[in-house]
């Protein structure tokens, strides 16, 4: 049976072809004109209205803070610290966005790898800075295996990545909830005192790697101002590595896969392998990110804690100006700073101004609103 035309799978392409062949010569210049028409508006559009609003909101916070009795330097210090905890997690979004896998709602998988690394490192008796290195060393193979499986799954369900990523994240977190109870951990610093087994929900890192990066070359001014130089340097290093990776041959191929997978395929790139690689890198960065977060925060949080870590991270990079299929290192830095700035500044300032702690509510509205905004925007280009 010769099906020259079948409803299910070739009619759109054929229709497009037909339309293209008739209208393209005309449509192309008109599009060009449109672009030339409003360079100013185009600039505003490229910066993004939501980002503009959030940036000015944050600026307003900084200006208002001293007047309502909050110490300006404490605030700055807080924002920088929060930034240093979260930046790597946000950076973990970049590879998957680049390869066209969309926003990594499956970040909890990476976080779980990190948590396994952290707990195993302590269980195996590492202490001090060594425990941090050991945690990374243990987390890495776990992240590669989990990321590999996750990437394989995402390659089978192209087009539905984001929803499935979300639920892969959730399932793995809830699965690990059982595992934290069942795995034979014994270290007295981690298990419940009375039962002698099952990990606690929160584990202090005092004596392990609490603030190992942050205290490296830390700059302290008085009581309230501290810059976690080591962490910032580490972030800079990772960002540099990511930037460098995107400039290599493989990194270039990855970006092309995200930009137009058919183009990449025609140019001889193995699209599935690139996507898999990006997922593995994202997962590994997620693992690293949670370790950096823990060293800043000083505690390991288990059980339900990783559940909702993906959403703030996703919205952070979107606030930074990324879209569902484009992201840069600058987006990461700006986004993390704006988002964490908002998170840290609003409670204190709000409280001082109107004596109402609306910060949580504002955070939810802004971050989810940002994701919604990105999802409803039409994705441009791409040959899908």
């Amino acid at each position, binding site marked *: 049976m010769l099906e020259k035309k079948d409803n299910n799978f070739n009619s759109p392409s054929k229709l497009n072809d037909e339309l293209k062949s008739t209208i393209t010569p005309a449509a192309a210049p008109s599009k060009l004109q449109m672009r030339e028409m409003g360079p100013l508006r185009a600039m505003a559009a490229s910066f993004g209205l939501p980002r503009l609003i959030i940036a000015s909101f944050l600026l307003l916070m900084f200006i208002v803070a001293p007047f309502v009795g909050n110490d300006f330097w404490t605030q700055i210090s807080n924002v920088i610290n929060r930034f240093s905890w979260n930046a790597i997690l946000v950076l973990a979004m970049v590879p998957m966005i680049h390869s066209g896998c969309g926003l990594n709602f499956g970040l909890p998988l990476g976080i779980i790898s990190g948590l396994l690394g952290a707990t195993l490192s302590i269980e195996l008796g590492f202490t001090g800075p060594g425990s941090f290195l050991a945690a990374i060393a243990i987390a890495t193979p776990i992240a590669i295996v989990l990321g590999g499986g996750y990437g394989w799954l995402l390659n089978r369900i192209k087009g*539905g990545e984001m929803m499935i990523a979300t639920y892969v994240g959730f399932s793995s977190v809830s699965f690990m909830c059982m595992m934290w109870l069942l795995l034979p951990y014994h270290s007295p610093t981690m298990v419940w005192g009375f039962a002698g087994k099952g990990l606690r929900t929160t584990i202090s890192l005092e004596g392990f790697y609490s603030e190992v990066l942050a205290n490296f070359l830390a700059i302290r001014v008085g009581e309230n101002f501290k810059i976690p130089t080591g962490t910032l340097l580490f972030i800079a290093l990772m960002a540099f590595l990511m930037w460098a990776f995107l400039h290599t041959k493989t990194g270039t191929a990855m970006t092309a896969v995200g930009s137009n997978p058919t183009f990449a395929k025609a140019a001889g790139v193995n699209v599935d392998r690139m996507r898999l690689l990006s997922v593995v890198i994202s997962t590994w960065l997620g693992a690293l990110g949670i370790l950096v977060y823990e060293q800043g925060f000083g505690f390991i949080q288990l059980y339900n804690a990783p559940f909702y870590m993906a959403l703030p991270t996703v919205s952070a990079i979107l606030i930074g100006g990324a879209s569902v299929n484009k992201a840069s290192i600058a987006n990461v830095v700006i986004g993390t700073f704006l988002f964490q700035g908002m998170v840290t500044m609003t409670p204190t300032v709000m409280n001082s101004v109107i004596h109402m702690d609306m910060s949580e509510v504002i955070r939810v509205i802004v971050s989810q609103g940002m994701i919604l905004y990105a999802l409803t925007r039409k994705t441009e280009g791409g040959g899908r």
Partner: protein
Amino acid sequence: MQENKSFGAKALEFIRNNIVPILFIIICAFCIPLSGFTPSYLLNEIVTRMGRNIFLILCLLIPIMAGMGLNFAMTLGAMAGEIALIFVSDWQIWGIPGVVLAMILQIPFSILLGLLCGSILNRAKGREMITSYIISFFMNGLYQLVVLFMMGSIIPIKHFSVKLPRGYGIRNTVSLLNMRQCLDNLLAVNIKGVKIPVLTFLIIGVLCLFIIWFRKTKLGQDMRAVGQDMEVARAAGINVEHTRLISIVISTVMAGFGMIIYLQNMGNIATYSSHSQIGMFCIAALLVGGASVDKASIGNVFLGVILFHTMFIVAPRAGAAITGDSMIGEYFRVFCSYGVITIALVMYETKKRRSQNRTAQELARAAAEETAKEAAK
């Protein structure tokens, strides 16, 4: 070729198409004896939960029919229901009149929310599910803003049992003691210790009839058409956007009713958390019943509720019996809910791709056969 399928192949296909319900039947069969519950207790619990949940789950059917997938934004209707109940309890109207008033009151709220949600989803065609999922979070933020900060300060809320002591905002728990199970108890029948909330089931029955009837209407037909192929429906003159919008509005309004039935059974509102998990549990239950992202029936709803909630009831006790830790069972049932949604989503996406491949394979085979024939000549 298709007719001669062996029994084994048929059975395999049946198992593959119904893997989720089968898995749950096995889990339940395994856990029920371990939990040590008496049959009458179990039956009682299941019947109660059916009355409590079925209405909520039924509201998911219509968006699936319209091709918009699982409506994670059904929480919006739940929020509308809660807001209505908060007002009603502030006005101290109890019992059946309170329930009826709340039901009427929630309609405008959920229509408004449904319109908002529907128009956002119309802008995100092809990724409705993730978008509706995010909408539920986003609206949760707005809900908190309204309930925690505006109620009592801007929106008049008087009664001390509802309002927080600080003068604005709603308490974490609003007691509905005075209307607790008033629907369920009316006309309730007790058969051998199993209480059957006849009125609630009657309401559910009416809703089922409504859905069956709705499928036969012009609007229902349009929704099915839009759900299967938006472009063809548009070419035939159906207003696609409007049809999708209506499906979401109906779903939201029904979720509002469902939430009120749910809460009158529970007897209190956990103001800030009642709605947050409801979407997930309803969706999981529906999928456990054998529904998929693009196909769901009333039968799926009933089977799903029974299986899912049986698992829900017995898992903690069974988990404790095996490991000695009741938390294991708690986590296990959460894991099951998420896991089942994950499996259903993955199956839906792979099926979509498989069907595409099949067409291609058929074509290739035809071409190859012809080439072979050619070679033979």
